[in-house]
């Protein structure tokens, strides 16, 4: 079945397809890849992985069955697979890095996974509760590890203010999580 999105991409050249896909799913795919490579890859590795995903998608979208159904789900799956490959490659030869949790979805870990997801959901909920721009600054600073200067340019504040917001938001996040029964020691 060709869905609406695929139909809209029909007839477009690969660069045009890539532009449309990045515009629609760029952030989604980047987030998936980042969450997997954050601990081992540089920003260059992450960008390379994300671009590989869109190159593959833009090239094969008209010809591969893989993309014929739900496009978003297919991109999500592709992103995960690619990120895991990158992780393995990046981790090779570095014994200090912990083993990849790509087997997290295996049956043995269902309970652990459920618990992990629940905590992640709670953390995201708490971040959301901070409201913008604190939630955004907090994530950019402590999750995406951007410098205060870059965040400042992005959110339209001075870097000093970004620092202030970030520290304050981090403090509040701790309080909110504690209110939800998640203590710092649990993390």
């Amino acid at each position, binding site marked *: 079945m060709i869905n609406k999105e695929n139909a809209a991409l029909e*007839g477009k050249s690969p660069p045009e397809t890539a532009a449309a896909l990045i515009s629609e799913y760029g*952030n989604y795919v980047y987030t998936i890849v980042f969450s997997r490579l954050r601990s081992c890859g540089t920003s260059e590795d992450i960008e390379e992985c994300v671009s590989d995903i869109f190159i593959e998608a833009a090239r094969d979208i008209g010809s591969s069955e893989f993309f014929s159904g739900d496009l978003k789900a297919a991109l999500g799956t592709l992103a995960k697979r690619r990120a895991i490959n990158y992780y393995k490659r990046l981790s090779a030869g570095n014994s200090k890095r912990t083993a990849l949790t790509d087997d997290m979805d295996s049956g043995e870990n269902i309970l652990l996974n459920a618990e992990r997801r629940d905590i992640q959901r709670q953390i995201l909920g708490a971040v959301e509760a901070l409201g*913008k721009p604190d939630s955004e600054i907090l994530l950019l600073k402590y999750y995406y590890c951007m410098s205060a200067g870059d965040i400042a340019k992005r959110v339209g504040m001075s870097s000093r203010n970004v620092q202030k917001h970030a520290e304050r938001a981090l403090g509040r996040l701790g309080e909110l999580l504690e209110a939800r029964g998640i203590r710092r020691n649990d993390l």
Partner: protein
Amino acid sequence: MKRTELDRLENIDDELAEKLAQLCPPLDASAEEKLLRRVKKGLADEVEFEYEPEVTVSGADPYQKPGWRRFASTAAAVLLIAGLCVAGGLIMRKSSRSSPEAPSAASASDGTSYSTNRLTDTEASGTSADTSVTLTGTADATETKAVTNAVLTTVKKEKQPFEHKGTRVLRMNELTELAKKGEALTLADLKDYVCQDIGGSIYVLKYYMPEGYTLLVGSEPGTDKVYYMNLYRGNKGGSGENYSPEESIDIRTGSISDFISTVNKLNAFKDKINAIAPENVAKASYNYYSEGENYVIELDRGQINTALTAMKEFKLLYEKENVQEMLETLEKYNSKPAKWIFEMNDGTRKEISFVEDCICIDGEYWVFEKKYSDNSPVTRFNNLTTDLYGSSYVHEFSDQEKCYLLFDKILFKEGEYIYSENYKSRVKIKDIENTIFEYCFSDETLRAEKNGIETTLFDDVLNCYILNMNNDNHADFCMTRRVTENGITGLRITVYDAYNNKTYDLSGGGEYDYWCSYFYTIDNIVVFEEPHDSAVPFESNGTMGSIAINGDKLEFTKEEQVVGAEVTEVRRDSLLITTNDYLLKLAYGREYISFELPMSYTEGYNVKEGTSLLIRFASIDTSSYPYHFNGITSVTVIAG
């Protein structure tokens, strides 16, 4: 890197990834553009690699994958022959810099557009600069994936050719003289000089100076309107060049001598880094000190490349944490600077280290001072020649001088530890004998040292500037302080008149908390009254103004605000909506904030989506959505 609760968000599932992406889209417009360029290049490289042997401009490609890239290249070659200046103009026109038409290498790859539309071949003219070119490779990405055509079209624009009347070559000393006119400088002032129009839809006049600099003037055809007068190092205006904001100044507002000095220093620095070519590095290591131990990490080839690239682009200075994390998690502030050691194939050794925000190459220190906003001092790159090694430098402060905290760094050495400081943070003030005042950033204190005895004057001082506030010809300290009263922590502006030993607090507001309405901050002598509705971007938030001492009171005077905005939607009267206005997003703001602006302000202009406006206003009304500007004094169309 600081460990936080957010570290638990690794390996998240698709649903949470979606939510996270919505909460904080990791890619802003420029990152998205960068990613797209990378993907396009990847796609093009694949095609080049696969189809290298057979290339034709017409006829079907027997392969299933598109050959658009090859066609584009061929057509680009034709274009090159047809006239390099035209292509340059197109690139200039596609610029994404803040100046409306300034060139950018970032957009150079977009000079070729791909389309499935079959276009009619019209005419190709390579002689005039008054044409813009659309290069179109036809690609069919449907089932057959066969390429059928590639067409080069040249579309006539209305723009008239620029009349070249000048006969003299512009020289730097003449330009320096002209620049003294500042904002009053017009095209007419440059009429005697030889130039070349390399623009697309607007004039981009290129004046190359024998001293090795280029002046690019962007101007609207048929008018005297000048968008920019940017001075660049080197011969600019060709295709595929790198333009970074740090590499140019608008001569109407910036200082040419500062620019040249910065450029010279920057070049000297880059030469030093470039001298460490990755292929000539035999071995490299990263050395750092943590908790009493020295650590050495040998770098592999990839890490050497990454580190050197990051150094060239100053990323290590501003994204230090990211790059260092590539190797190991480090303490943020090492008491000893971390050091990169490169052992070269010829047996020499290069050492690069970072001392706070200074870079040290082979014992020579540099600091790059960046411009963060229009209110910040200009971008400068300094070679730190003053290395006092422990002596106590005191700046003799003149009456009218402002003290910018970011500037004039100095290095100190105590034993084996090196640290940097803003040397103007230790000042003497006229007629106050034997006293040295010091603003200590790390302790957030303002201190006074008299006859060897140190006293803390103010705690929780977030920033401190020095200027003569009460016109008594003595410098005063202007601080943003953190103040806690009745359990509520807020920010407050305090002025300390050291000569008369008097303290003034800015009254009204000043308390900050999640439920308070606004607070005051000071940044480079400009005061901001910031409402707590922090969803509004800071630069356009609340009111900007100045403070003054009147009698015994410190008073805040509101000033007009100016903000750049882009039209995101033009809303005209319809059956359902009775409105006649634009929706805007602020140029430096976040995309999810919408502002409404009545069309009556731009009568006579063809304002459409993407048009950039400059709005002067008194304040912002955030009580409704979209937000409104109050007290608009003018709206200027600056591009689009």
